[in-house]
């Protein structure tokens, strides 16, 4: 019906000008031939269109038949079409057949962007946000600044009193091919610096519960280490991680092997070989200082090794409990300790080198209250870290101590609980402390005090994609021997997530 109407319309449209002109017979004959050729062409096109339409209708109304035979295809997960539709995989008819057949953006990785900003205020002119990461410990850390300290320059921006934009995290992830998955995470700070937080590939197909990951990644050491800042239950990192591992935690380039043995309880065992470019625990000093203080060159990697085990008994669907034990060894650790003597201007620098160990214990418990939007849920997590650096003095203005040994031990822990007291609302409480043990032993003995903090916060998750958080902390930070800074710090934070649906990881 429609076909004949269309053909008639085309014919009359073409015929009208042809008949109005007094034309010669051969011309008319030629036109007629052209016309019939065109008619045939259009009819063919319309028929093929109809055929395609009928086919589409058939598959849409009776998917049972198609899925039965092609159930390989039906084992693929259904996902929402991306906002930019892929170009049709069947030849496009509307484009007149000029378009190239392409799968367009269908192969784009999953993308999400997370924006993390805050308003911050503390009672010491905004110095507090940096200070909590510079609590006194006898080794390393930020406490022994070199004047031209650059270590902190690649932190996540600097937090000042007032408005701060911490970072925009851009995450890409996709399946590479049948063998690998891969992901990349970029953090863009408010001054435009871009940091590669993670970029790794991981195997999909290894047998026996084995997986291998390679690239730059956050280590599976401990529990909170591999979480990105927007996944934390508190605005800022706990004192133990912040002071023993730095702003980015144990983040390095290397390779990881994990094994999930078929035991009755969940057990994950893993080892990592990492380059040793870790900001605090895995640090070596620069070439100039290495030469000046006769510390020796940075050796070939990998220099940092980790091993971890996680065990989680099955406690039914309301409870989840996981225990973790982690160990890291850094085979080359270098530090410069500077000091001045009373009445002298000259800064004395001691060069120390050796190795470092880090132990971690973690316990995580979650209760699923099954209430609306997280009401009744409880999450408790605690971790203990202990860093032991075994260093020798390689150079010093005080000749007598060269060659002597110093063992620096600093530990720390945090315990935090988050409770969903109403739908979409949680309250969190955290206690963290650094330096329960905070001492030097070996050829020189000294012991220092600890720094600690109480933090209380309130989080409103408006939807799965946005969060507002208010946080108050009472800090008691040891900044120098017998010198403490006690201050209050207040955060208001927003977190929004654009793009693909986030993962609800354990």
């Amino acid at each position, binding site marked *: 019906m429609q076909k004949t109407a269309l053909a008639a319309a085309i014919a009359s449209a073409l015929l009208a000008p042809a008949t109005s002109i007094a034309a010669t017979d051969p011309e008319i004959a030629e036109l007629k031939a052209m016309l019939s050729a065109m008619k045939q062409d259009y009819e063919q096109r319309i028929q093929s269109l109809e055929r395609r339409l009928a086919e589409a209708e058939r598959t849409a109304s009776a998917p049972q038949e198609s899925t039965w035979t092609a159930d390989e295809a039906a084992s693929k997960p*259904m996902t*929402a079409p991306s906002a930019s539709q892929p170009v049709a995989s069947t030849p496009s008819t509307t484009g007149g057949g000029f378009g190239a057949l392409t799968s367009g953006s269908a192969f784009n990785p999953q993308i999400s962007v997370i924006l993390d900003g805050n308003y911050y205020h503390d009672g010491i002119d905004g110095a507090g946000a940096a200070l909590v990461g510079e609590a006194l410990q006898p080794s390393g850390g930020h406490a022994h600044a070199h004047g031209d300290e650059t270590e902190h320059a690649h932190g996540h921006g600097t937090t000042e009193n007032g408005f701060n934009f911490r970072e925009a995290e851009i995450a890409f992830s996709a399946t590479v091919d049948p063998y690998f998955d891969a992901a990349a995470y970029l953090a863009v700070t408010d001054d435009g610096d871009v940091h590669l937080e993670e970029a790794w590939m991981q195997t999909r197909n290894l*047998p026996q519960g084995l997986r291998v990951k390679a690239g730059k990644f956050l280590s599976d050491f401990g529990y909170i280490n591999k979480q990105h800042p927007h996944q934390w239950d508190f605005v800022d990192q706990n004192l133990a991680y912040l002071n023993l591992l730095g702003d980015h935690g144990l983040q390095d380039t290397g390779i990881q092997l994990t094994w999930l043995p078929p035991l*009755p309880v969940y057990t994950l065992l893993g080892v990592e070989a990492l380059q040793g470019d870790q900001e605090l625990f895995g640090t070596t000093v620069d070439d100039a200082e290495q030469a000046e203080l006769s510390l020796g060159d940075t050796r070939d990697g990998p220099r940092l090794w980790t091993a971890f085990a996680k065990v989680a008994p099955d406690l039914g669907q309301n409870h*989840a409990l996981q225990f973790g034990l982690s160990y890291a060894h850094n085979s080359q650790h270098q530090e410069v300790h500077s000091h001045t003597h009373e009445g002298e201007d000259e800064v004395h620098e001691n060069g120390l080198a050796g190795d470092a160990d880090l132990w971690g214990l973690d316990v995580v418990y*979650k209760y699923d209250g099954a209430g609306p939007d997280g009401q009744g849920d409880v999450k408790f997590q605690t971790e203990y870290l202990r860093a032991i650096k075994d260093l020798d003095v390689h150079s010093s203005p005080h000749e007598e101590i060269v060659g002597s040994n110093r063992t620096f031990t600093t530990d720390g822990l945090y315990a935090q609980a988050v409770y969903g007291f109403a739908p979409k609302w949680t309250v969190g409480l955290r206690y963290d402390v650094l330096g329960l043990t905070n001492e030097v032993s070996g050829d020189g003995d000294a012991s220092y005090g600890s720094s600690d903090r109480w933090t209380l916060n309130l989080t409103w998750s408006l939807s799965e994609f946005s969060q507002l958080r208010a946080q108050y902390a009472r800090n008691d930070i040891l900044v120098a021997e017998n010198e403490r800074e006690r201050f209050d710090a207040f955060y208001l934070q927003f977190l929004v997530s654009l793009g693909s649906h986030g993962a609800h990881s354990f």
Partner: protein
Amino acid sequence: MLKRLSFVLMSLICLGNASAASLDVVATSPSMGALVRAVAGDRAALRVLAGPDRDLHQLQVKPSMIRALRSADLVVAIGAELEIGWLPPAIASAANPSIQPGRAGYFEAAAQVPLLDAGGPADRALGDVHPVGNPHVDMDPARMTTIARALAERMAQLDPGGAAAYRRGAESFASAVEQRLPGWRARLANAHGVVLYHRDAIYLLERFGVPLLGTIEAVPGVPPSGRYLSELTAKLSGKDGVIIYAPYQAPKAANKLARDLGWQAVRLSLEPPLKADGNGYLAHLDAWVETIASGR
């Protein structure tokens, strides 16, 4: 010492593998568990990851889920992004290539049947929307028979020795549904309609032509405002119906609406009990049909 330790380890491994069933199946929800029991019976050792009172969209990964997926031959999910927050990361962590999406060991119910609500705009101003379609296909008994047959074929592919048994299981489930349909149809012929919290039972309503009078949430995943609720009350006053909400949905708005309209607000799970089989699933639908029919 080491010998003893390895002995303990070996015996634990053997214990972990000890199972008479031919297929180790993990179902994400009780309805999928019921379908597995209906189709495979004793041939499947089944583990259901979430109970009927859980929100399958909000669930978090637990290590025990990863452990269950580690040795599964087949994972049966409702799919269409319902479990998107936790199932993909759990499968990725399980280090089990045979249940990866795209393999025979990965089965999505929603991928076997046509979906409602498909193709909406991908705009989260409209809430937690999923343009791929409404995933709650397990509420439609007719679609479930299609899914049961597809599941039987999948199981037959993974365990050819049981092919006849799986197909028999699917057919007897299908005929049980077939027997119930006329009764349900008659019971719901004059149903006034339902207010749901979320568009999660629409497959059942659509199957029996029961009108959906409204949803308590204005957009998916966002609680209703007072103004929206009073508009809803105004729209529905004078009409008849029943309000149904799931155990994990906040009852406050549902109860207020019920009071204002003089209706009943009923808390009813979208999923059958954890241990339900095919009959348990049908009994679960009976409860829904009776509740809808009770709307005055």
